[in-house]
């Protein structure tokens, strides 16, 4: 059992949890993920590691309430325990030898982009960040990003915070005025797709973090497979980070919708259960 030592809401649908998991904390690195089960009947869901404290023996996760499992997760409070918590899984982000990097985060993807930005900044890389949200109520981690970035560009769909527009607009601006070794984009598939299309024009290497449906997270099931440069890869062991210029995003989006109807049904059942 894995105790929740801290829980806080970052916005109405996104929360941060600090989990007591000393062994995972010992080995965790930016870019890797964990798999958790809320209770003994629960499904296994992957979440990218949003931070860790080796001394305190804790791992931080940030999740958005999107389905029945994250609804169940969000019902737990400080002092409660997760039934299962396994990791660190996947390959860490490569942070060596980069002079300047643009980090692009979209929505809850910012939770995963932040430790990457921090790891880069700690190595002396100049980091510029573009963070995108639908509106000002959903903005998360602004202070943390500012601390790790030379330039921080906040974009909202409705202009209620920062600039009005898409992350690609701010990124284009940055690509025009600076030289980047790499762009790292983490967020919704559609955002990563358009970031990759843009950076291709500028011929800047782009790393994206994929978060497909997964079961075991160790390569055993192959459910997380994606197409990269025409080759099939398993996100859990070959990734989760891949070359954005080679990922087939359209296929990944379709595969992500495989269980959409079932998820809806489980959400409705869970809402009913909570009401009763």
């Amino acid at each position, binding site marked *: 059992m894995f105790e929740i030592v801290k829980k806080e809401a970052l916005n109405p649908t996104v929360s941060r949890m600090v989990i007591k998991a000393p062994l995972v904390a010992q080995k965790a690195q930016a870019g890797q993920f964990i798999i958790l089960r809320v209770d003994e009947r629960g*499904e296994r869901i992957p979440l990218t590691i949003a931070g860790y404290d080796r001394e305190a023996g804790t791992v931080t996760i940030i999740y958005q309430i999107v389905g029945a499992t994250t609804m169940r997760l969000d019902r737990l409070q400080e002092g409660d325990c997760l039934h299962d918590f396994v990791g660190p899984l996947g390959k860490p982000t490569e942070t060596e030898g980069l002079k300047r990097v643009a980090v692009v985060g979209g929505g809850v993807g910012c939770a995963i982009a932040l430790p990457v930005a921090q790891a880069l900044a700690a190595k002396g890389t100049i980091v510029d960040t573009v963070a995108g949200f639908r509106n000002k109520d959903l903005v998360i981690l602004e202070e943390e990003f500012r601390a790790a970035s030379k330039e921080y560009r906040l974009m909202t769909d409705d202009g209620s915070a920062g600039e009005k527009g898409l992350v690609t607009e701010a990124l284009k601006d940055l690509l025009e005025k600076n030289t980047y070794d790499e762009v790292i984009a983490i967020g919704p598939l559609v955002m990563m797709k358009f970031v990759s299309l843009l950076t291709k024009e500028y011929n800047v290497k782009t790393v994206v973090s994929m978060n497909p449906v997964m079961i075991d997270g160790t390569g*055993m*099931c192959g459910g997380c497979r994606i197409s990269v440069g025409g080759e099939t890869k398993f996100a859990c*062991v070959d990734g989760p980070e891949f070359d954005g210029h080679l990922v087939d995003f359209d296929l990944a989006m379709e595969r992500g919708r495989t269980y959409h109807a079932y998820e809806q049904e*489980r959400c409705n059942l869970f809402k009913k259960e909570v009401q009763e």
Partner: protein
Amino acid sequence: MADMRLEKQPMPQLAPEIRNKNFEEVALGYTEEQAVAEANRCLQCKHQPCVGGCPVQIDIPAFIQKVQQRDFEGAYQIISAQSALPAVCGRVCPQETQCEGKCVRGIKGEPVAIGRLERFVADWHMANVKEPPVKPESNGKKIAIIGSGPAGLTCAGDLARKGYEVTVFEALHVAGGVLVYGIPEFRLPKAIVAKEIEGLKAMGVKVETNMVIGRVLSVDDLFAMGFEGIFIGSGAGLPRFMGIPGENLKGVFSANEYLTRVNLMKAYLPDSETPIQRGKKVAVVGGGNVAMDAARCAKRLGAEEVYIVYRRSMEEIPARAEEIHHAIEEGIIFKTLTNPTEILGDEHQNVVGMTCLEMELGAPDESGRRRPMVKEGSEHRLDTDVVIMAIGTSPNPLIRSTTPGLETNKWGCIVTEEESGKTSREGVYAGGDAVTGAATVILAMGAGKQAAKAIDEYLK
């Protein structure tokens, strides 16, 4: 004088048209009377050919004699001296090519039903004997076992019996490996596996779930923690795909994923949190036991038609005869001499069919089986909405890539000395599918047993 009836006592089982709609165990097991009657068919041969056919060398005539005498617990003690998992082996071993394949009674008529008797004895023990096994005195030496499948559990059991302090590390959230994620409930009830593991725990074996060795701890970390011997039984690994167009469409699964959703995550239960696609027409590509398991699960999940698509003929099909027999009884349709070349999808990337070729068999290839060759002009379409690839696995790179000095072969399997399971790293032993590639439960158990013996000799 032995009972000279030519046939085995028939195994009571659920009727096919009932069982193909539920996940209850197909074979119901012998009654005491049936077990004694079957045991009486044993000739008690002096030269014991059956024992030579058993990878863990159970003293088969001796346990059968105890059954003849109605001393069922005595029979259990004889089996469990060699096997950590008798209730499992009695259900899933390919006895026809092992102990029963060597049985003298099989020369004229059917061999003694050794597997069914083993299962009877193990089930009798579980139902009637409540006191836990005696916990051996500790010798103070710590052993780490990586993987809680048949190889790891056997190795753990044998070493625990000798007094070692054994810890088993399992990557998933429950112990059992392929016995819980792979083999379906209707062939091997998960409660049986859980009871066998409880038995090992009672002997002092510790089981740590949620531990992906190679990530959270490396083999070298384990040595640093004071483990003196390590056994790697991490299993078969990554599922293979055919490399044909359309394999990433929605509705294409590896058998590993399909079976894991159904068995480990219980997707067949109505209140499961884990979803599964319930196809109307399901095609399973492959002809091994895993393919049969996947096909029979698909039927139970409500598929109208389930096909086994296999490129050779019924002569070469590698699954056990009993599994094929059960599958046919349950209405699985065998499309042999058929090979898919493309999986077809609709505009939303959902599977709608497969393009297949008919094959014919030529001269034997390096595997000794006749090589399938394409029949000219035989391209045709098979309508299907779920495709399950059951064509084998390749080893997981997680441990080999994080263990310096651990030698692997060109396929990525861990290289070991055949008799002992000793690897190129001092104190590290390995066995089961991680060494051989996909094989059977009992072969993995045999390897776990040999390694336990070798580890004991190494640490003595």
